[in-house]
């Protein structure tokens, strides 16, 4: 079944101008550089990529926590990229966010009651008398209880705080939640608890997630579709299973192969990338991955590849798959990937 599109991103760009202290020139960081994708209702869409590739910025721009430099954000058929602050406020009960850092995302001066009451109050949701009950319900759902209501965030563990953060996002019963690395700051044993909670909530409330993570095993486990980002660009999009089974872009291949094995007996053919991720302030010409790509060709240095669709919804931006010369080289590469 083809679900409806909930969110559509078209040519989104976000550049940051940052000053390098007093002595240096200002630089322009292309955190998100012309990306497009869409999220369907009810699915979990993942953004994956290395640190600094622009995942968080994408998420924050979609929620208009920062203003996009350019491009369109269409939510439920409505363009929201230019909505003024106060109109955007009204929309926020439909789209919510869960943050990476459970310590920083809760106001240390507010009790849990205040933290959870705020969204209800702001959006005037539920009659006043019922709100407390709703909060208590929500607490129960995320595995906390009434007696936590009057405590302050610092009295909770990281896992518990993350659950409070999730509760705050879900209590408005939004359609769409962006979860920005919701588990990466948590202990291994607590991670799975939070992932379970997110899965449960999705089922219960029919939520759509934009799930941001760099942990490929988590992504493989819980998402439906994945977009792989590199230096502010999306290099590959596919259904999760398809992507892990059949990665097309050399970067995706390297990324997947770099994941540590899960059992000592496992044998893994590694593509070890050389070098570091270039700075988004000064991205390489052509295909931005060419500096590290084991299959880089001449054209990669000069021309930016365009998106090529393989099977249903599986797209990648790579010259290996575009029609041009160097056929042999390409074939070799594809066969060995």
């Amino acid at each position: 079944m083809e679900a409806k599109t909930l969110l559509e991103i078209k040519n989104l760009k976000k550049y940051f101008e940052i000053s390098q202290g007093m002595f240096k020139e200002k630089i322009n960081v292309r955190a998100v550089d012309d990306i497009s994708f869409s999220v369907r209702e009810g699915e979990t869409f993942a953004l994956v990529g290395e640190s600094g590739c622009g995942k968080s910025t994408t998420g924050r721009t979609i929620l208009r926590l920062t203003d996009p430099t350019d491009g369109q954000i269409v939510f439920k058929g409505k363009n929201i990229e230019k909505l003024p602050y106060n109109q955007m406020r009204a929309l926020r009960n439909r789209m919510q966010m869960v943050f990476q850092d459970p310590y920083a995302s809760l106001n240390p001066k507010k009790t849990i009651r205040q933290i959870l009451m705020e969204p209800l109050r702001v959006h005037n949701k539920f009659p006043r008398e019922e709100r407390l009950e709703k909060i208590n319900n929500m607490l129960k759902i995320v595995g906390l209880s009434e007696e936590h209501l009057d405590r302050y965030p610092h009295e909770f563990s990281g896992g518990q705080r993350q659950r409070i953060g999730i509760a705050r996002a879900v209590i408005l019963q939004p359609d769409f939640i962006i979860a920005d690395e919701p588990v990466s700051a948590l202990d291994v044993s607590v991670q799975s608890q939070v992932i379970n909670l997110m899965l449960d909530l999705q089922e219960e409330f029919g939520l759509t997630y934009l799930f941001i993570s760099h942990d490929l095993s988590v992504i493989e486990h819980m998402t439906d579709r994945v977009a792989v980002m590199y230096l502010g660009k999306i290099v590959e999009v596919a259904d999760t299973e398809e992507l892990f089974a059949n990665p097309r872009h050399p970067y995706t291949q390297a990324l997947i192969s770099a994941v540590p094995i899960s059992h000592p007996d496992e044998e893994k053919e590694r593509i070890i990338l050389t070098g570091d991720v270039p700075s988004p302030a000064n991205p390489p010409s052509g295909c931005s991955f060419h500096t590290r790509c084991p299959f880089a060709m001449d054209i990669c240095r000069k021309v930016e590849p365009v998106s090529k669709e393989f099977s249903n919804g599986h797209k990648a931006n790579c010259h290996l798959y575009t029609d041009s010369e160097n056929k042999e080289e390409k074939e070799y590469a594809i066969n060995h990937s």
Partner: protein
Amino acid sequence: MSSSLPQNEQALENRVKPKRKSAIATFFSNLSRSWTGLIGFIIIMTLIVISLIGQWITPFDPYFAEFSKKLLPPMTEGHLLGTDQLGRDIFSRIILGARVSVIIGLATALIAGLIGTIIGIIAGFFRGWIDIILMRIVDVTLSFPFILLVLVINAIIGAGLRNIIISLAVGGWVIFARVIRSEVLALREKEFITACIATGVSRFEILIKHIVPNLFTPIIILASLQIGTYIIAEASISFLGFGVAPPTPAWGNMLNEGKDYIFSSWWLITFPGLAIVITALGVNLFGDWLRDTLDPELKGE
């Protein structure tokens, strides 16, 4: 406890659930652990009490000039710290002088703190041109050494308790504005503020309900550390003859009046000076303690 159901994380919860003490009890139990903070606190409380009831507990009338008893050394004729050049009891005058110091310290901290905080909040929250203008004003004010600035202003607007508070506040608000602005800037970037925006809280509410409450700690710390500076500044200016005018007893002007007696009657300059030192010491100790307790990261401005 350990017999309760282990699987339930509630068990652990309860075991480690912090005993909730009242804020005051926490304050004192913290305070009692640091002898420096305790000394500071005792000095401050003594000072405040003295400044409140001072006029009823002075052994002599601090204004009354008993010419026949001038310049009596300490411990003579019932004058604990001796008498001054007009035969007034120094001990009584020091007690009454505490009021000036307390008023100056508190009032200036209040006014400078309020102005500085408001300006800091405006600059930090709204940014843009208003920030630029306000920060230029701050720069201008900061382009003078504090004491000199206060002195010049005071010399220009004239002496007196009210004017000295004004001039100290004019010199003092900037530091609040600076610190508060950078606090606000830091807070703005905090994830919980982003979370508020994501929730849909209005900007005004974010400012009032989320940013301002988080400023209390830095404000209190800063104010407590500044009070000492103000008290010393007042004394310096009075000493130079611009501040609180005699006959109102203030420690600075007692020193000013007594400095010509340095060769004959040492007690005239010794005791008011000690009073200032002890006060500044107390305030600093308490302020340091407060800073270390409330915000270990704010060390060193």
